[in-house]
């Protein structure tokens, strides 16, 4: 069976509902590239999700262009993870088993096994439904770069909702 055409489906749905279309940004230029400088088994791995993950006790996300992020200690108990995201219809499984959208336990296991050199002390999430590309470019992306850099990560494992 062919893959789901999410962009077409969501555009048509929003059009029927009278919503402004969600504007995915089409990249026109080939992506930049940074080669790994060491083997993965020596890399400190960072992780980030756009699923609106937070830890019980942290502030949840709001749904209108929230460009904040949460730092989540990578030894956090999986049952303390929560999710808030504009499209809550994609969250029911993650809310029962956070690893569905925020694969913290699998990455911890790979660190234990030595497949990756280690997991950063803090991993991250934001709420990905930001309708303003300008605010992603000017607020969210620089914030996430600073956060990953402060963790001293060698590579970043990124999981969109």
């Amino acid at each position, binding site marked *: *069976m062919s*893959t*789901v*055409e999410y962009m*077409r*489906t969501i555009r048509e*749905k929003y059009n*029927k*509902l009278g*919503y402004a279309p969600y504007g*995915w940004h089409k*990249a026109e230029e*080939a*992506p*930049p590239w*940074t*080669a790994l400088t060491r*083997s*993965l088994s020596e*890399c400190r*791995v960072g992780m980030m999700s756009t*699923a609106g993950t*937070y830890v*019980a*006790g942290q*502030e*949840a996300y*709001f*749904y209108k262009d929230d460009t904040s992020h949460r730092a989540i200690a990578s030894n956090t108990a999986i049952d303390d993870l*929560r*999710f*808030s995201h*504009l*499209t*809550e*219809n994609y969250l029911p*499984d*993650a809310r029962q088993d956070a*690893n*569905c*959208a*925020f*694969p913290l*336990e*699998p990455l911890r296991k*790979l660190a234990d096994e030595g*497949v*990756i050199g280690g997991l950063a002390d803090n991993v991250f999430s934001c709420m990905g439904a930001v309708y303003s590309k300008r605010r*992603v470019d000017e607020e969210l*992306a620089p914030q*996430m*770069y600073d956060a990953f850099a402060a963790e001293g*990560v060698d*590579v*970043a*494992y*990124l*999981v*969109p*909702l």
Partner: protein
Amino acid sequence: MCLIARYLEQRGIPTLVVGTALDILEYGWAPRAVFMDFPLGHGGGPLHDPAMQLAIAREACAAFETLSEPGRIISSARTWPDGDAWKQGASDDGADDVRQPRDLTPRYQLEADRQLAEAAAGD
């Protein structure tokens, strides 16, 4: 997420996007990507399936070392455990509003989370 991946990569952090929407991944053109043909919300894998979740993370991490061409997407051969029936619902453009209100109110998963967070903020 592809915008963030490109931003990080541009500034010297190698990235890998592990996504479940192929058309959105192609449009955003991340430096490295692994696609799994799973329902949205399952980039880590199926519910309560730690073996498959671990296998996915292992497979995805390997792509850091095997991908060498900017912008290529590896399509995983993994299939969703319950078959493809979920695609029917995901392709439905019916007019059910699945979005929550877009405003500035934090939306807690649990009421207890709100109380905890508000107590922490009040300290």
